């Protein structure tokens, strides 16, 4: 996973290590907090609901504090690149459309949203001719429709388009 030559760093390894360890610490803290709220002690009829999670949360906190200190004072990460700018652009080029895609599913159902998503991806990143884009994106989803709705009888979310076609 070494960044390509000439790629400017977007994040350093050290800041990424610290950020992730801090998120762990936060999550561990939430677990400990909620376990204490529920009661993490010994009741007359046995351990309370928060008993087990309390220690789990505590271990998350301890481990992430060690990781945090390691990342903070450690020298081996100095100057190492977590992700380069070109790489980050590539990752975001997938992550952002994919998130929009998930948001779209609520409105249009999974089939229409997937066709748009695959088509967008092929056209934008792959620069394919429109007929190829159309054939692959629509073809894939027709196959999926047959597999899920007809063969395995697993209904997937549908939207106005399927209703219009009388498939919903």
């Amino acid at each position: 996973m070494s960044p390509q030559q000439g790629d400017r760093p977007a994040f350093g390894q050290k800041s990424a290590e610290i950020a992730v360890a801090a998120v762990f610490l936060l999550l561990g803290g939430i677990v400990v907090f909620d376990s204490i709220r529920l009661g993490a002690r010994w009741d007359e009829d046995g351990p309370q609901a928060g008993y087990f999670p309390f220690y789990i949360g505590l271990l998350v906190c301890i481990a992430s504090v060690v990781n945090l200190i390691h990342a903070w004072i450690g020298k081996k990460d100095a100057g190492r690149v977590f992700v380069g700018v070109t790489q980050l652009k590539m990752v975001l080029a997938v992550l952002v459309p994919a998130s929009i895609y998930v948001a779209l599913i609520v409105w249009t159902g999974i089939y229409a949203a997937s066709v748009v998503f695959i088509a967008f991806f092929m056209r934008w990143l792959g620069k394919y001719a429109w007929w190829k884009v159309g054939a692959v994106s629509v073809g894939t989803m027709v196959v999926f429709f047959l597999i899920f709705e007809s063969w395995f009888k697993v209904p997937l979310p549908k939207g106005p388009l399927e209703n219009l076609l009388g498939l919903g």
Partner: protein
Amino acid sequence: MDEIQALAHGFVVALSLKNLALMFVGIVLGVIIGVLPGLGGANGVAILLPLTFSMAQSPGGTTSAIILLSCIYWGALFGGAITSILFNIPGEPWSVATTFDGYPLAQQGRAGSALTAAFTSSFVGALVAVIVITFLSPVVAKFALEFGPPEFFSVYLLTFCAFVGMSKEPPFKTLASMMLGFALAAVGTDPVTGTLRLTFGTEKLLNGFDFLVAVIGLFGIGEILLTLEEGLEFKGANAKINMRVVLDTWKELPRYWMTSLRASAVGVFMGIVPGGATPASFMSYGVARRFSANGEKFGTGQVEGVVAPETAAHAAGTSALLPMLTLGVPGSPTAAVLLGGLLIWGLQPGPLLFVEQKDFVWGLIASMYLGNIAGLIVVLTCVPLFAAILRIPFSVIAPVIIVICAIGSYTVHNSIFDVWMMMVFGVAGYAFKKLSYPLAPLVLAIVLGDRAEASFRQAMLVSQGDLTVFFSNGLVGTMTGLALALLFWPLVSWAFSRFRASA
């Protein structure tokens, strides 16, 4: 020989037309899943698991369902070798060691023999592991029938401490990631008292985080993001296998019987203890290099260097099912997903399975023999086809895989919220991979969290909160002691190296 009789009965179950068909479907799907980046054994099985919900309802359906899913697993194990040898891209983490000698062989135009060697040794490794499972698992199951809650908890403890002690990743990162898994498992309704935990008033979290969604996100989306960093191009060697190359390679292979034997032993051992296929393949490669007469030539394209890691990886991947079936403790992430499947279908993994679900257990074991034979035939004959999949440009494959992952996580509970969770887990998986937080203990903890907690609380109830119950008899004491030794092993070895450095 009760085992032989039970196995014969298992073959009767597995040899039905429907199950044989599912076996081939599973293998082919599995190889495709193993070849594609972003889809691997664990999340491939996770995505297809919801499709088996209705299948498992019919009589004998659970056996068919496990045959389908386990064959996907075998297929994925085979498929990993194809990408490593032809493209120098390990499709699965356990195929990394296969690239060391496999890719140089392909560059020298000997891709055919490298592939044949890889597939054949995969098969040998799996076969050894299945034989071990056939004869060892009834013994382990019978032994484990006597287990009470303290014993089960100490088995879980041993599993998780082994991760800390034996993983290549920094111990505190392993601990953090494992405990995060337990915390995620605790979200939702408390299995004992019914209290809501860690939901903070949202209905969405009532049922907790589903491990299937976590697996699909962590391994699927995370892997896609990692692959994309490297750009959209794949360049690979040509794959041509004809009968002559296969036969020539088979003539060469018996020379490496010692390597195979060692690799199988390493693999089976690492699969049963929760080390998993990945360290097994590296370890076996290292051992083979040390003992081989051509050790110094390793890395330049030695067939033996393909045999060693592939045998071990497949042996480990297969034998990971032994503790899953007999103790309910999976040895690998994929085995963990299969275990989750058993729970969803309403089966209780563990020693009772061998008493109450004979058809299921022996049908599965028989299908492991048949599935691996089917796998060997499928991969040897269809390699060019599978390699062609990798030639499909990534800008086409990536969105399709993301769509498959989204559908997979949606079908778990029919909820869009799960698809969002998959995206969150995807980003987490990407960051964890890059910062070497191991994912396997996280997944295992999500799957086993509730069961580990239940056995812990039952044990504590029996002993009235006295922790010495985990040392109350020889068996449980040994397991707990071993677990603690493994847990503190990194500390000991660190102190030891410090001591040696200063002396």
